[in-house]
């Protein structure tokens, strides 16, 4: 059975999840440096008025992400 990976872009405000990996190498190195580590928990805080960018909490601080960036972060919850 093939299940489409859930990503941060699919999350709803208030939802939490565990990061499992990335689908884009170019952005992943940047995300890793900012503390988006596989195995860490991530919380979706809220989104901007037009749905993009979004604000998440990870590794103990708040960050903004565009949906283009959020979609490469695979999660489990």
């Amino acid at each position, binding site marked *: 059975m093939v299940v489409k990976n859930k990503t941060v872009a699919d999350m709803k405000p208030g939802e939490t999840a565990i990061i499992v990996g990335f689908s884009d*190498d*170019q*952005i*992943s*190195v*940047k*995300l*890793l*440096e*900012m*503390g988006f*580590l*596989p195995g860490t928990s991530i919380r979706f*805080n*809220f989104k*901007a*008025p*037009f*749905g*993009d*960018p979004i*604000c998440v909490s990870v*590794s*103990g*601080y*708040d*960050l*903004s*992400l*565009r949906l*283009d*960036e959020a979609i490469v972060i695979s999660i489990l919850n």
Partner: protein
Amino acid sequence: MERKIKVALTGKPNSGKSSLFNQLTGLNQKVGNFPGVTVDKRTGMCELDENTLAQILDLPGTYSLYPRSLDEKIVAEVFADRKGIYFPDKVVLVADTTNLKNCFLLLTQLIDLKIPTIVALNMVDVAAKSGMSIDIKLLSSLMDVPVVFINARKGQGIEKLKKLLLLPLKVSERKVFAIDSEIMPAVNEIKDKLQLSSDYESYQLLQQRDHFNFLTAEQKKFIVDLSKEYKVFPGKYQGAETILRYGFIQEVLNKIIIRSANPEWNKMTHQLDRLFTHKIWGYTIFFTVLFLIFQSIFTLAQIPMDFIDGSFASLSNYLSNHLPHGPLFEMLASGIIPGIGGIVIFIPQIAILFAFIAILEETGYMARVVFLMDKIMRQFGLNGKSVVPLMSGWACAIPAIMATRTIESWKDRLITIFVIPFMSCSARLPVFAILVALVVPDVKVIGIFNLQGVALMGLYLLGFVAALVTAWAMKIILNVKERSFLIMEMPTYRMPKWSNVGYTIIEKTKTFVYEAGKVILAVSIILWVLASYGPKDEMNGAKEVIQTRNIGMNLSTDEINNQVAAYKLEHSYAGIIGKGIEPIIKPLGYDWKIGIALITSFAAREVFVGTIATIYSLGSTNEQPTIKARLQSEINPLTGGPRFTPAVGFSLLIFYTFAMQCASTLAVVKRETKSWKWPLIQLAYMTGLAYGLAFIIFQILS
């Protein structure tokens, strides 16, 4: 014997580095550029004790040695180039205690580079409030680096840090990152060949050779050849390295954190965020803030501006009464002093604007503005981070263009730089004021709004719309497939630290005075020469001509002198150029007199007002009502009607809204984009647009 050591401050953005820098150096700071790149270089002196002086270098904020922007690139370069002039003797890593994990990534890299480092744990007060408690001694022994608590905002712990800087500092014995064994031979070869002090330094060169300008062509080739042999491409191991480092950091944190922060501690920030990023309240608040800034720029700045204007006028007058007359005096009184006055007059507006921007940044609100505006700005090829530079453009394009350095994507940055000059700067205001007063009736509309005020607002809006439309067009034309990012920290809200605001104001004002000032002054002097000299015969005969022309008219000496000045300007080189361009500007409704004013505006747009005053024989007045009355009475010899019809007035307003008439802006754009290509395109595009639109407006209205 005085000892001098070099200290670099580093750390991630929002860790309080600038506060520490300000605490250490006070007003002994300088802002310049790193050679060859347009990255701010902030340095300052700090006396550690009677015999030791520390030269403090405040490096741009970064999370790691792998750069994402120009600013961050310089950090990697400073630390990798041991022979470079900026390589520090000691490094202070400023860490935000409430968020150690992200701060320590760079620390572990510095440890592997074998650079002597002190960790300054900042914001201990906030950490304490959050209920967090850490074992600083254990941290120091696990990392093998000295650690101090500081509170940079309140100045606590600074003395202790200074004392530590005086002591000998050894490098950490830790080795955090083990380099992959398959590339170890390459790392060793580079290390031997370039005589480097650590494996990690060699590894950095291998990974990021393209970023390092200090490498010679031969060294670069050597490294590139090796990386081909070992199949290393930039970024290949970066992800693995980061994960490994964070693993180490997490282990350390697990040991040193005695009690972790109560997750509720920044509840206030989350509540404020809900308000500031709300789809209605968020924008309402943002536009209210903008309106407030606008109001302050215009009303608060007026008093000091009038004072400056008056002082320079009386200085010129004083000199003309007390110095021997001659060409040198003329240049001083009519070229140099008004030139300097023309620079100083903008300081109040620039200072007020940057005071607001600094406060918004200090409180953390600016990150929310970026967040709120990103999606909208992206439709136009811009970026959330373009908002601050565009806002700064209302004061002056020079600091605004320099503020674009925080935009990581080159395409977004270029577009932002390109459209900033459309934002109506302070130099346009005096021109707008006089022309609006001339052609827009002073009446109220809908009972409350002054029609002139509405017209002025309309002009600002027009400039802003032009900026957006141009950006949108550039997005389509450039069509660069460069990914831009917005992975940005949303800092916790806090009260602004007023001294930091003060330092920002001083820094930005200085930038303006030096960057714009030198060009404005040079252009003012050139224009003064053009406006005061001309073919000899005509210039010398000015007085006689005017006297014979006015025989029996019983004019006062002043009136005669003003007419002589007008006559001289008409026959000067500037006058000749003005007449020369008359055929070109005639379709816009301008004559050669306006032509002269257009040319002299190239020093700074507000010179228009002074030139108009001289050419219409008003002497050197800046009195708006006087100029207005004079312009109203001017007759157009061709039509017999008034010279400044609404058509001409609006045509001029449109021209000044769009035209690129600022030599200093062009110089700064050249420096920031590193070629004449963009400033020249900007000049041609903006002036072409101004010409076209002014033509249309004039033809429709007349």
